[in-house]
């Protein structure tokens, strides 16, 4: 018995929810053990219990063969359990080294800090990770990927031999993911155990040794990662099988252009981008993070200024200076960060749906017609299948997929002909994703022009008529769905990078 971790019969109840029901889990030395399940299946809760954030209501936990009962994260850290939380939890105003050793700063007498020792120790950890990063760089100046590395360094600094990573690649591009995997493999070869929570199936195949699947707070089973078909894993996750092939799309009318963008440019971020979207078409936008896809969307929408270029809607040239102009022209933009830009999460479903269209619900004196808003909200809840107890429920209490539907409802109400979806399924589980796809396809069939920006290639391939690929601010190509493959997209997405690396080596 040399399990690193053995959890058995774990129970956890929150008010009104049986979050974990007889959950079990084990981790061996030198293993990457993936933990999968839909949102709300209990993965994060189970790991928070292992790392001492939550107290369990029942069951037993053994770490290195010893029964443990962690009161607080510190106790778990001392036992060698490190966790890297889903939401990056760094202190932005502190440096890398200060973040890594928060709570355990090398000290001198009278509570004085030993900054030199702090930076030296952090640098040692970075060099173990083969990471080239100045320990004195404030975290807010780093890319998300570097911040992730700091998180890992922090976990390692506790001499953790059990490392929990909760969706570590959610915000990383492919190159960064491969760096992360290199570090994970190095840790594994040194005998550490890694628990890897992810929604991404392809990553699982690359990195995991075993997979444990959770559903509704229970562990459904543990299977070897390499030999188990993805379809089987999904079946275990959702309790039913899902089709992940390309979806049936209706033909669109290629004579009727809904949105035409010509020569759009801004500094280095957007360089001479031109494209058309037709009525009834779904145009996918693929590219690595930072390729300029969101920037293009925001410029078209008037949220950011552009240096040059024209935007035509239904053949009419428009001068869009602000989102107000864009909305008036029938362009809607659903931002990638629902919580920050898309929704007032503390307000009700009804208030959120009515939000962008209050004029429609207000009298001349500016008073709001609640019953009209309720009727409209109710209509969209049914039309989009938003799962909520009532239209008065606060949006923050809904799942990610249902929150996304509320955002969609909001924009449908504006009656936009052109809808731009930026990462519409980020943070949404497999089942809800399928519903969002169906919704996008329905919207296109109703004659709307849809742009979908997505970092997940399989997703772009499944739902787009055509796929526009960007790299470093340029639109490097538009592929028809018949010709597009993951490989052909990646080739376009890395095109200018390769060209540049020949001419200017070493530059970023």
């Amino acid at each position, binding site marked *: 018995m040399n399990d690193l971790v053995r959890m058995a019969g774990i129970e956890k109840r929150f008010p009104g929810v049986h979050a974990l029901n007889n959950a079990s889990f084990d981790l061996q030395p030198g293993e990457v053990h993936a933990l999968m399940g839909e949102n709300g299946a209990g993965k994060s809760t189970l790991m928070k219990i292992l790392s001492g954030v939550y107290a369990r209501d029942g069951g037993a936990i053994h770490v290195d063969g010893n029964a443990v009962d962690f009161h*607080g994260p510190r106790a778990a850290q001392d036992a060698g359990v490190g966790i890297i*939380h889903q939401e990056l939890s760094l*202190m932005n*105003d*502190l440096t890398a080294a*200060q973040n890594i050793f*928060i709570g355990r700063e090398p000290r001198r007498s009278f*509570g004085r800090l030993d900054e030199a020792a702090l930076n030296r120790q952090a640098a040692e950890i970075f060099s173990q990770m083969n990471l080239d990063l100045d320990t*004195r760089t404030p975290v807010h100046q780093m890319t998300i990927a570097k911040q992730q590395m700091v998180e890992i360094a922090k976990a390692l600094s506790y001499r953790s031999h059990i490392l929990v990573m909760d969706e570590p690649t959610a915000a990383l591009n492919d190159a960064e993911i491969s760096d992360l995997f290199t570090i994970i493999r190095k840790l594994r070869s040194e005998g550490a155990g890694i628990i890897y929570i992810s929604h991404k199936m392809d990553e699982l195949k690359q990195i995991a040794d075993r997979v444990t699947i959770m559903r509704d707070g229970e562990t459904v089973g543990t299977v070897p990662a390499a030999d188990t078909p993805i379809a089987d894993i999904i079946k275990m996750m959702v309790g039913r099988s899902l089709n992940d092939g390309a979806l049936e799309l209706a033909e669109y009318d290629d004579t009727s252009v809904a949105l035409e963008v010509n020569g759009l440019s801004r500094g280095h971020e957007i360089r001479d981008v031109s494209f058309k979207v037709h009525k009834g078409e779904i145009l996918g936008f693929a590219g690595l993070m930072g390729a300029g896809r969101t920037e293009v969307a925001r410029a078209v929408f008037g949220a950011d200024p552009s240096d040059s270029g024209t935007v035509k809607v239904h053949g009419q040239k428009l001068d869009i200076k602000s989102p107000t102009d864009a909305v008036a022209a029938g362009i809607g933009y659903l931002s990638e960060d629902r919580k920050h830009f898309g929704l007032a999460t503390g307000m009700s479903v009804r208030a959120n749906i009515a939000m962008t269209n209050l004029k429609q619900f207000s009298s001349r004196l500016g008073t709001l017609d609640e019953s009209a808003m309720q009727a409209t909200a109710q209509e969209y809840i049914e039309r989009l299948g938003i799962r909520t107890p009532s239209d008065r429920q606060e949006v923050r209490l809904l799942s990610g997929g249902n929150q996304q539907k509320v955002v969609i409802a909001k924009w449908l109400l504006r009656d936009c002909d052109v809808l731009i979806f930026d990462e519409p399924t980020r943070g949404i589980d497999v089942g809800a994703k399928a519903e969002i796809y169906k919704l996008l396809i329905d919207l296109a069939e109703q004659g709307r022009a849809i742009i979908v920006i997505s970092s997940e290639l399989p997703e772009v391939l499944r739902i787009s008529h055509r796929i526009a690929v960007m790299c470093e601010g340029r639109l490097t190509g538009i592929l028809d769905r018949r010709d597009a493959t993951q490989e052909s997209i990646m080739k376009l997405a890395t095109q200018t990078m390769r060209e540049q690396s020949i001419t200017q080596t070493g530059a970023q």
Partner: protein
Amino acid sequence: MTTDKPDAQVGLFGRLVASGAHQKLLAFASLVILLLGFSLASPNFMQTSNIIAILQATSVNGVLAVAATLVIITGGIDLSVGTLMTFTAVMTGVVLTNLGLPLPLGIITAIATGAFCGFCSGSFVAKMKIPPFIATLGMMLILKGLSLVISGTRPIYFNDTPGFDQISNGSLIGAFFPSLPIPNGVLILFLVAAAAAYILNRTVLGRYCFALGSNEESVRLSGVNTDWWKIAIYSLAGAIVGIGGLLIASRLNSAQPALGLGYELEAIAAVVIGGTSLSGGRGTILGTLIGALIMAVLINGLRILSVAQEWQTVVTGVIIILAVYADMVRRKKSA
């Protein structure tokens, strides 16, 4: 982007300044411009006596602002610094005048009372999870009331304690350098500021100040007892306010129980002008000192130019808005 040169051997002062140099540059430049402008406008402005008057006027607000800076960097706010200052002065009056105890006990009382009240505010915030704005608003009213109750709404004079007025008004520096009669109050302000800057940049307590303001949940998940540290920071701020109470009582040679309301806003204004972020995580003591000086220079200069007092207040308000706006523009550019 950073002005820090990691490898260079920089002195303590250099390190304290460099940690947020560009942030304060703006405030510092404004201060220089104000000084130049006023000295061109009036020959009386640059007189030694007037400069000393400005510094003297800065001392109390400066000390309160240093205390407020600590709390604001944690992402909190302290609305009770003004009435706490008065309360510590009144308590000192009780000990020295009503009980007739010796001067050192009075000094200890002021600082201990301040620290205790800070401990209470900190506990309301950290343990009872009351938002800092509300907790310190309540504290502000409690202390205002207590000051009036304990003093019987009458000023307490320190005529029986010889030397009490020297705490603020005497000049230790002047005793050695007769040409530089800088009052002790100013000296104390600079000592307090230096100590606070040291604590903020060089100690664990200071590190948690910034860390709490940056991302409190993350600090907690790192296994740090955030409640305890937060209470410690509020207590330290309270103790510093106690020093401010001593200064004001010494300057007036009395504890004026009706005084205090409004001081907290001036202190917060100085902090904000000095470039400390009200959302926490960023700020410097040097910036706060410059902020406090800007306010004092402005009031003094306008008075010398015979601008009515009502208008001085208006100008102060405009300066606060301009200072924060300029800081935001600068930050946007550097981002």
